[in-house]
């Protein structure tokens, strides 16, 4: 789906942001990208839809060389959802906001209408269709921004810090939506600091530091690896801390557990239950 091959990129040609990054993301995957600020996460994602072009190395999207495609063409395959919805909302109704991208990307009027209505109903925006985005709450604006990208039904959806400022319920709604999209074959890429969100919903994690990929693999092995945590200045997941503390007292407990269920089972076992 997306192949990134030894990509180098430096802002203004002098501030290195990516220093030789290679990875492959297949259709239907759920991948989290984690790392400190300035590690190159957002820079990497911007290469996937052509907002940035590699200064060295190559990017392939759907088997086609991305350097030969415009951002608008790439955007039909790779949809990017930004952290701040206010950076993209500018029209006077929610409906116009959602159809804006569709028309730009060359969908016909019939198609545009159908896609817009479908997306609004999925995201629960139908009642707000004629409201001005500026009169909505922060959470609702975030949904409108997401809808404007989802309407194009991209094959890859990349989200930048989607959980910032979201409460537990909103996070749950977001993750349900992402799971549903993913079940229908859309690959989901998420750039985030929210380690707990990653553990619960993303099987694969890419950890970055200073423009390099430090680890790329199964989430529960990447995020419980002390060295990766140290290098990428991440924090150890809450339950891994618990399992490490338990491991010191009960060596039979693995120090690398991540989920509530795993801990629960381990503790019941300690108490001699089944």
């Amino acid at each position, binding site marked *: 789906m997306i192949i990134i091959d030894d990509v180098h990129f430096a802002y203004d040609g002098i501030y290195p942001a990516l220093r030789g990054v290679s990875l492959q993301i297949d259709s239907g995957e759920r991948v989290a990208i984690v790392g*400190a*600020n*300035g590690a190159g996460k957002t820079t990497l994602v911007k290469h996937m839809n052509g907002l940035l072009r590699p200064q060295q190395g190559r990017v392939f999207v759907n088997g086609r060389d991305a350097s030969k495609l415009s951002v608008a063409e790439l955007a039909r395959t790779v949809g990017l959802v930004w952290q701040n919805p206010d950076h993209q909302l500018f029209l006077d109704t929610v409906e116009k906001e959602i159809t804006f991208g569709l028309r730009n990307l060359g969908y016909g009027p019939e198609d545009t209408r159908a896609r817009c209505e479908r997306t609004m109903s999925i995201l629960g925006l139908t009642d707000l269709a004629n409201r001005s985005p500026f009169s909505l*709450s*922060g*959470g609702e604006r975030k949904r409108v921004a997401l809808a404007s990208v989802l309407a194009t039904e991209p094959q890859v959806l990349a989200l930048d810090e989607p959980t*910032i*400022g*979201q*409460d*537990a*319920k*909103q996070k*749950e709604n977001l993750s349900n939506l992402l799971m549903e999209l993913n079940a229908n074959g859309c690959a989901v890429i998420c750039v985030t*600091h929210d*380690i*707990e969100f990653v553990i619960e919903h993303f099987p694969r994690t890419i950890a970055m530091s200073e423009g390099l990929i430090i680890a790329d693999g199964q989430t529960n092995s990447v995020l419980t690896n002390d060295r990766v945590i140290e290098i990428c*200045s*991440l*924090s150890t*997941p*809450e*339950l*891994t*801390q*618990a*399992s*490490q*503390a*338990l491991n*010191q*007292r*009960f060596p039979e407990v693995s120090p690398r557990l991540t989920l*509530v*269920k795993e*801990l*629960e089972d381990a*503790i*019941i076992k*300690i*108490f001699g*239950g089944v």
Partner: protein
Amino acid sequence: MPLVEFVDFSFKYLGSDNLALRKIDLRIDEGEYIVITGPSGCGKTTLCRAINGLVPQFHRGYIAGHVYVDGHDTRESRVAELARVAGLMFQNPANQLVTLNVAKEIAFGPENLGVEPDKIRARVEELIETLHLEHLREKHPHEMSGGQQQMVAMAATLALEPKILVADEPTSNLDPKSAESLLAILSDLNRDGMTLVLVEHRLDLVSRNATRLVLMDKGSIVADGPPRKVLSLPICEEIGIGIPKATQVYKHLKRNGCVLSRVPLTGEELAISVEEACNK
């Protein structure tokens, strides 16, 4: 006399249909460390604004009831006067830095209040030292990371020597490491006697040091008490807040008939409780 007292206080923003705060009764005493949490739009931010008079002085609207801060009624005192009592830290660090260097930034508040220059200089140097800001001295705010900006914003708030520090989600735009160190400093401040009100989602990081956890939903306070007690209530799941994972494990175990002696807030505490239960 309590430091802050909400008496049957309700507030509705101009142009809004819903009450942002409804019938709040809340008493904050000196030296407390109160964490406020709740779903988006529950009124946390409005509550913070009401403590330093931004509500109703800066944000106008319908008011009922009163808020007394160190004896001043916030309806009658200007925000600038209340600034000496209650310091507010906001979510977005970049919007709190209005000058081009750290010393000027810290001096901004005391200068506004007309403090003598010698005293300002002494305060500035003291804060730069205690919050370890020396290396940022000559940096332009936009050259600093979010965590560094928020530290400077904290120093600038503390420069007014407030009796109570109110921080409205100060960590939400920070990376985990910066968030942890900021929260550690806040808890140190409280240990040294500062009264603290903190709005925070990451309860696993703050519950252990907090003296009280206040839960809000739809403009009302729905639970208020020691963190361990509040977090074990079923209402936490009902309104949807992020309970620490260790506490979740405790709750699951309890449902399966396995009761630990106390409610754990961190992984370490969970392990200790399990060990104690085993030894019995």
